[in-house]
Structure formats: C-alpha cells, structure tokens
C-alpha cells in the first residue's frame, strides 16, 4: 500500500494505482488519474464511470458494460484504450477488476 496525492487529496492507493477507498473518489481525482493514463475525460467517459461505480460490487465484465446501453464494447475500447475494464476501474476509483471476461 502506498500514499499518493491526487488532485490535492492524500490517498491510499494499491501498488498499481487503484484507490483503496472508493468513497474518497471525486471527479477531480478521476481527471487526474485519467491524465496519467493519457485520457482526457469527456461527458461520455463520465457516463461510463458512473455505471462502473454503481455496478462495482456486482462483478463487472466488459460484456456487462457493453450491455449497459451507454456504450458498446467497441466504443468502450475506444474510450479507454489499452485495457478498458482495468483503466476505467482505476479512473472510477474502484478496486482492480478480477474478471477474465
């Protein structure tokens, strides 16, 4: 476990940069983590992030996000290139996903 200051807030993060406590998350933190991942967040990103935060406990999969009605799977990959489920989870301030699908 490590300490990291993101958007002026001192936070506990895992070794690969996921927030330890999802309740400490806010949109400014999301923007800063996204910037580290090379992503400029748009409203569409935030819609997806909202879905991800709301469904964090239910075992998220790429398939579920694809069926959310917010974005299809192709669009999800375009929004968060290079590993959409992991990267969006990190930006959304939830735990690292454990799904294989």
């Amino acid at each position, binding site marked *: 476990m490590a300490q990291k200051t993101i958007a002026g807030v001192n936070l506990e993060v895992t070794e690969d940069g996921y927030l330890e406590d999802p309740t400490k998350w806010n949109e400014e933190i999301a923007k800063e983590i996204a910037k580290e991942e090379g992503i400029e967040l748009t409203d569409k990103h935030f819609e997806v992030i909202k879905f991800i935060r709301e469904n964090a406990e239910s075992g998220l999969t790429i398939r579920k996000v694809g069926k959310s009605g917010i974005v299809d799977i*192709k669009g999800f990959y375009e929004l968060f290139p290079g590993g959409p489920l*992991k990267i969006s989870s990190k930006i959304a301030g939830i735990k690292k996903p454990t799904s294989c699908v």
Partner: protein
Amino acid sequence: MAEKKDTQVKKVAIICAKASLEDVYAALVMANGAVMEGMEAKVFFTFFGLDAITKKHMNKLHTATVGNPGMRMPGGLPFPTLLGAIPGVEAGVSSMMRKQMDQLDIPPVDEFLDMITAGGGEIFACKLAVDMFKLKKEDLSDHVIDIITIGEFYAMAGGEGSQIIFT
C-alpha cells in the same frame, strides 16, 4: 507482486484445432483476455476448430461425454461412458454447460467473437482445412478477416514479446 523486469507479453497468436466446447472456449478466453489487457491477439482456426467460426456450428459446440475423464455427474459421481453414448445425452450436457457459462457472463461463441474483434483481435481461418472441409468464405462467420496459410499466420505472429499458443 510480479517482477517487472521480465519482457512483457505484447502479442499472442493462438491456434485452435479442435471443435470441443472446452478447446474453443480456451482459445476465446485467452484471446479476449489478451485484448482486455491491451495486448494484440490473433486467432487461427484450423481442422475441426473451424466449427467455431462456421455459421452453422459455432453456437452449437459440444463437449465430449464419451472418452472424457473429466466428465462428472452433477454431484461429482463419475459419468458412465455408456450413458454418454445414448443419443441426445451429449447435446443435453453441452447445452447445460453453455447455460452455466452464460451465468458467469461467458457469452455464446458469436458474441465472444464480437467482443474479441471489438477489442481489435483478429480471426483467421486455415486455408488447408477450409479446402479439406469444402467450406466457402460465406460459410464462415463475418468475424473472419481472411482465409490464410499457416505460413502467413506465422508471418504476422512475430515481434518482441509475442507468443504462439496452441490449444
């Protein structure tokens, strides 16, 4: 925590030569898992593996109920080989397995191919096997980019951090 100094896998080239549910899904899960992690994935279907990308068969794959030592009855008792030989049993068992997989959010084959290609994964059919089974391009799923030789597949499987996997 894994050592970071290892060369990371950046690309997987997966070859699937069998039509059983478990062999095809092993290939699909590995391919999808790769694109999910931001890696490149290419899958080459050959011999009976072609069933997985043939429109007529792709969503009706079976698992063997005869000659499959891993097959068990619900509850864990051994699955009698003679029972597995009764017509319809293999279809029933396979359909049960597909249903259980769906509950774990493992999609049917065509939807799985949608997911893999949406993530940039590429699907190929083996020319030799396509000729042998007298298939045409239109018999194959639209996910298939091209019908190619194994040599052509190897030609695109190279590069640093690339791996070839055979199921």
